[in-house]
Structures are given as C-alpha cells and as structure tokens.
C-alpha cells in the first residue's frame, strides 16, 4: 500500500480509523450515562452509607458496619467498572486512530497489518467489555479482559517491532501537506495543541495542590474519622467523613478536568489528519471543527467548575460533551460518504 493512499478498501488504516471513531463515541456516550445516571446517584448513597458506617462503628455495631460497607463496596465497584470502561475505551479509540495513521509506513504485508488491526480491535472490545460486564456476571469476565489486553499489546508491539526493523519504509511526510490542506485541519492542529498545553499546565499546577494540600487533607480526614470513632465522638467522626468524601470528589473531578483537556486535545489533532476524508463542503468542515473545539475547550472548564458550583456546572459540562459528540458524528458522516464514494470509484475502475 503506497503511503499516499491511507484509506484503501477495508485495509488496516480504515479498520482502525472507523473502529477508533466508534470507540471514542461509545466512550463519550458511556461517560455521559455514567455522569448523569450512575456517578451522581451513587455519590449520594455512598455518602449516606459512610455516615451510617461511622454511626454504627461508634455504637459498636460491627454487623451494621459490615452491612453498610457492602453497599459502599458494591457502588464503588459499579462506578469503578463503568469509569474504567469509559476511560479505557476512549484511550483505545485514540490509540486506534494513531495507529491508523502510521499503517502506511509499516514495512509489513497488507495481510499482516490487517491481522494486527483486527487483533487490536478485538482486544479492545474484549478488555473494555470484560471489565464492564464483570460487575454483572462475576469475576471470570475480568480474565476475559486480560486476554483482550494481551491481544492488543501484541498488536501494538507488532507495529513497534515492524518500525524497528531495518526494512525500508515509505515516508509519511509526503502526504502531510495534503492532509493538512483543508482549513479545518489547520484550525484543529492549532486548537488541539493549545488545549493539550493548557491541560498540561493545569495538570502541573494541580499536582502541586494535590501533593501539598488535597491528598494530605484526604488522609487526615479519614484518620480524624477513625480517631473520632475510637474516641466514641460521633459528631467529629461524622464531620470528618463528610470532609473525606468532599475531598475525594474534588480530587476525582479535578483529575477528570485535566485528563479530559489532554484527551480532547489529542482527539482534535487526530481529527485534523482526517478532515481531507470528510466529504463535506470546506465551510461546513470548518464549522463542525469549531463546534467540536468549543465543546472540547469548555467541557473541562465546566468539569473543574463543578468542584465549586456542583451540578449546575456539571450540567453545562454535559451540554458541551454533547457538542463534541455532535461534531464527531458530523465528521463520521462525512467519512462514511467519502469511503462510499471511494468504494464506488474502485468498483467502477474494476
């Protein structure tokens, strides 16, 4: 496959690109469902259960402690598995898109490239699916997830080994200028790099706050809770456990703001490379790129503001998440139109 034809009929690039976009979309949908229906609801119940644990422990009621911890454990696991699936699917989507771009330079046969691509996609589905269903069907599904992980590690490792081989490979640089020719592409490269930079600066700033203030505050709150229980001081223990939950939420939400900024930045740059294959008018390509960029910039901001303004800011984050999905879906339609046109052309040529 020459480097100048990145999307051939069902070749590895196309498999990975379409699989990647699907995974990113599913991850975002799962993230919205997680935020609206699981996270907020579970948070309230977990907070109540922690208060009940503290009361029961203060009263010396070991049975009630166990009962309430069972609720915490169950909801933490449900939330954790959904969250895990959301973040892994998003990361697999990004990886699939990145791998799609380097397929033309791999010194491998088309058949071997396709094998690695299928292996990657199968592994990603098994890993994320296994983690998600393990909450409902039991621990065996987790081992299915491990099999998936092994599969995609082999696939990514195979790509790496191919690049490390001394066989001559075509250069990607000859197609770069063509790929970045649409104005939407150039806009997206700059927007993506700037968002990643902002996310990294915020991450560095927050890591200082995390190490010096927030994390010690979490540990001191749980220590104060246990101390309150040991001293039979229910009021102090109750206040401390509420503080523990507040700090945990703050850390998780701030980390989410940081990671969403970086991940959206990566997605935006990746999308810059495929604008050429979005079969839409150039003005519309740029409009959808702007819609997506506005959503991607404001979602992390609103996620962070949720640490101060709670659900009001979270609702705006959901709204901007919707804008990102809308932009992605529009581009997805454009790509489907392009691949359809390309297929028709090749059928006519045959």
């Amino acid at each position, binding site marked *: 496959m020459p480097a100048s034809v990145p999307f051939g009929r069902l070749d590895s690039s196309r498999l990975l690109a379409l699989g990647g976009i699907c995974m990113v979309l599913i991850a975002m949908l799962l993230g919205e469902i997680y935020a609206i229906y699981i996270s907020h609801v579970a948070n309230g119940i977990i907070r109540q259960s922690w208060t009940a644990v503290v009361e029961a422990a203060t009263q010396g009621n070991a049975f009630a402690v166990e009962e309430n*911890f069972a609720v915490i454990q169950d909801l933490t696991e449900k939330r954790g598995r959904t969250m895990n699936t959301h973040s892994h699917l998003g*990361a697999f989507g990004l990886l699939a898109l*990145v791998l799609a771009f380097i397929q033309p330079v791999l010194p491998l046969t088309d058949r071997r490239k396709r094998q690695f691509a299928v292996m990657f996609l199968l592994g990603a589905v098994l890993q994320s699916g296994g983690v998600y269903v393990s909450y409902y069907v039991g621990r065996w599904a987790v081992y299915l997830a491990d099999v998936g992980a*092994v599969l995609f590690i082999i696939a*990514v490792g195979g790509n790496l080994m191919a*690049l490390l081989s001394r066989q001559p490979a075509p250069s990607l640089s000859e197609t770069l200028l063509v790929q970045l020719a649409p104005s939407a592409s150039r806009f997206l490269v700059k927007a993506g790099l700037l968002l990643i930079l902002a996310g990294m600066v915020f991450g560095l700033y927050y*890591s200082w706050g995390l190490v010096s203030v927030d994390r010690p505050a979490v540990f001191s709150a749980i220590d104060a809770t246990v101390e309150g229980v*040991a001293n039979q001081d229910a009021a102090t223990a109750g206040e401390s456990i509420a503080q523990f939950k507040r700090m945990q939420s703050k850390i998780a939400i701030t980390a989410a703001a940081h*990671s969403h900024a*970086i991940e959206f930045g990566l997605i935006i740059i990746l999308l810059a490379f495929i604008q050429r294959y979005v079969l839409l008018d150039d003005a519309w390509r740029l409009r959808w790129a702007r819609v997506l960029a506005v959503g991607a910039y404001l979602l992390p901001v609103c996620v962070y503001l949720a640490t101060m303004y709670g659900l009001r800011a979270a609702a705006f984050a959901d709204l901007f998440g919707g804008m990102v999905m809308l932009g992605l879906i529009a581009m997805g339609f454009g790509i489907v139109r392009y691949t359809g046109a390309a297929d028709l052309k090749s059928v006519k040529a045959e």
Partner: protein
Amino acid sequence: MDRYQKPVVIAGLALIVAGLLFGLVFAYVVDHQARLVAADAYQPVFQLLGENPATDWRGLQEKINAQSLTHASAITFHAHSINMGVLLILIGLLVPLLGRAQGSGAALVVGFVVAACLYPAGLLLIALKVKFLGEVVAALGAGLAIAVLALLFLKFSAALKTISE
C-alpha cells in the same frame, strides 16, 4: 526534519507498550479496580473498632493509606505513559512541518522526546516507592514538556500559515 519522524514515532509506541504492559501486570498482580483512594479498603479498621473500640488501629490505618497512595501512583504512570506516547506519535507525524518554519526545530523535537520519557519515568519511580527522586524527575519532565510544547506550538503555527489549500 523527516529523519526525526521515525525515531519519534518509535519512542511514542515504546512508551505506549510500556504503559500497557505495566497496566496488565498491575491489574493481574495487584488489583483490577481503578480507585483514587480505595475507600472500601478502610473496612477492616472500622470493623475492628465496631467490635472493640479499644483496638490499636493506627498501624493498620497507615498501611491502608500507603497502599492507596501506591495504587494511585501506579495508575497515574499507566495512564500518563500511554497519553504521552500518543502525543509523541502525533508530534512525530507533524515533525516534517518544522522544516517549513524558521530554524530547524530539531532541538525541540529531541527535547520533547526526553521530556515525554522523563515524566512517566518519574511517575514509575514514585509507584516503585522511590518517592523523592521520582517527584524530582516527574517535575523536571513535566516542566520541560510544557516549555517545549509551547515552543513547538509556535513553530507549528508558523509552519501551518505556509500551507494553502
């Protein structure tokens, strides 16, 4: 600049494979559940106190706190290594653009590869409980990555202006 493309992409893929392998081993050996602070891990302490308020809980509590921290550091390395790898590959794909901007930009590319490897390396050291050195290396890596990425952004922006449809 084209000769830098392949090594940058290889470095990115190597970081991704390292992060994936670490994640798999960690999930298999330690825990499959991603938790910032394993809240339900505190159950034994409350259980003990519920049964006997006079129990000495401090040792157990400290152990659970330390486990939570190690857990968080390990997941941080796993995630950051993969994301840095993806970013490196993207920078690698864009590297030929630097040839269109003033100055070669080669030092920036090399600097970003070093930073992208230093940062996860520091996080790995923290996860392996080499805390102080790990924090220094991670902070250096993060600072360098931000500075170099800011300069690369300016270079790429200048180069993009030279492309027309």
